[in-house]
């Protein structure tokens, strides 16, 4: 008989029972719906062994890679330790080793960690300072055995955490990090597929990581990156991107400014409008969308209507945390 461990409890899974049936029988609250592996309400994650492939049918490839599965169709082949998607795993400590101002609005923050930490470039972590204030930021670099994480932090009006990073945080300080989360990242395979990357402001951070990952894994299809901002203070890494575009034949970069930017050499307009109108069809493309929630949601829909498959659209909307007063 297989055992299912969740949190502090371990239950035995009866023969022919699914993980969902075991947990519900033991009064563990697991959201569920169709119980046929279709509606994905009972999405869970294995923290140790890979779940049976049959319990991952229909899930996004990035979620499969992270061992997510559907509890209602999972008949365990081995003992499993599982968690609900919102259950936090272990956190780690990391120290600030570099702080750079990229534009008046954006800081590049580099952290170094000591304990083993797994991530994909483009995923996000929750950064927590000593008093508990916590915000999510996307990882802009790829894992390279150097124990480094890079973040691009935009100053938000009245943003408690971002203002603190901009004005007070110094190299040497320690932060607590959650495990890496999110399904918006690059996976190898289908190397010839065209990629469309659209980001606004510090939405470039995950896209920068995704781009680095794709190039490091010899992605051979065309890669189009559109980075946009309302004003010039939200645009950064412009020279780096232009250099990369010169170096890699398959990489194309367009910087866009939607507000007033006369005299600049950026394209005038909103990044997603420019990106999506530049292409006749997105059939067969892989699409990555990061940044302003409205941009992300609009673009997701536009990309789908233009022919991209839902399974090929990866998105990370940057929701602004409302401070409780």
């Amino acid at each position, binding site marked *: 008989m297989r055992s299912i461990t969740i949190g502090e409890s371990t239950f035995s899974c009866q023969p022919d029972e699914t993980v969902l049936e075991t947990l519900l029988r033991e009064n563990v609250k697991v959201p569920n719906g169709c119980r046929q592996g279709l509606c994905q309400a009972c999405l869970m994650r294995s923290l140790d062994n890979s779940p049976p492939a049959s319990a991952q049918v229909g899930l996004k490839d990035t979620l499969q890679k992270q061992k997510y599965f559907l509890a209602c169709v999972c008949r365990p082949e081995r003992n499993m330790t599982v968690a609900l998607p919102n259950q936090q795993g272990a956190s780690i400590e990391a120290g600030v080793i570099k702080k750079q101002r990229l534009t008046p609005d954006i800081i590049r923050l580099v952290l170094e960690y000591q304990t083993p930490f797994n991530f994909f470039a483009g995923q996000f972590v929750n950064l927590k300072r000593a008093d508990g204030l916590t915000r999510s930021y996307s990882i802009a670099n790829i894992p390279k055995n150097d124990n480094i994480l890079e973040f691009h932090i935009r100053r938000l009006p009245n943003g408690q955490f971002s203002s603190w990073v901009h004005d007070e945080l110094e190299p040497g300080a320690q932060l607590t990090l959650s495990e890496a989360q999110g399904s918006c990242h690059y996976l190898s395979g289908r190397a010839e597929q065209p990629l469309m990357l659209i980001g606004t402001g510090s939405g470039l951070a995950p896209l920068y990581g995704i781009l680095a990952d794709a190039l490091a894994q010899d992605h051979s299809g065309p890669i189009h990156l559109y980075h946009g901002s309302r004003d010039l203070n939200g645009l950064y890494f412009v020279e780096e991107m232009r250099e990369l575009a010169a170096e890699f034949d398959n990489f194309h970069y367009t910087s866009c400014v939607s507000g007033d930017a006369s005299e600049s050499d950026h394209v005038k307009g909103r990044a997603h409008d420019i990106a999506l109108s530049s292409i006749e069809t997105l059939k067969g493309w892989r699409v990555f969308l990061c940044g302003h929630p409205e941009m992300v949601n609009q673009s997701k829909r536009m990309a*789908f209507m233009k022919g991209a498959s839902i399974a090929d659209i990866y998105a990370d909307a940057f929701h602004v945390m409302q401070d409780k007063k």
Partner: protein
Amino acid sequence: MSESQETTASPDQTLYEKLGGEAAVNAAVDIFYRKVLGDYRINRFFDNSDMEKQAAKQKAFLTMAFGGPNNYNGQDMRNAHARLVKMGLNASHFDAVMEHLGATLTELNVPAELIGQAAAIAESTRNDVLGK
């Protein structure tokens, strides 16, 4: 129908098997959902920023219409659509969805007879979906 053996379904095949099972649902879901989202008459009912979840729901619906395995009962259907009924969901919207179901299957070259059977299954949910 032609006498080709390829297309002669064995008499005990279910509708789901005749239509091509899960692979057919996967082929249909993007086409169907794109039609629904592109239809100004009904897209407000499908306007959910979580398109993945929406697509998963469309997949569950198509699986059911295709005669595939499903555990939905009338009460589930009522509960799932109660919010939409409050938003004004009525028979004309249901008809529009039926149109898109038919058009999707036509686009996938499904024989008319099988389209009719799938449409009949979908049609059987009408009262529950509309909370009648």
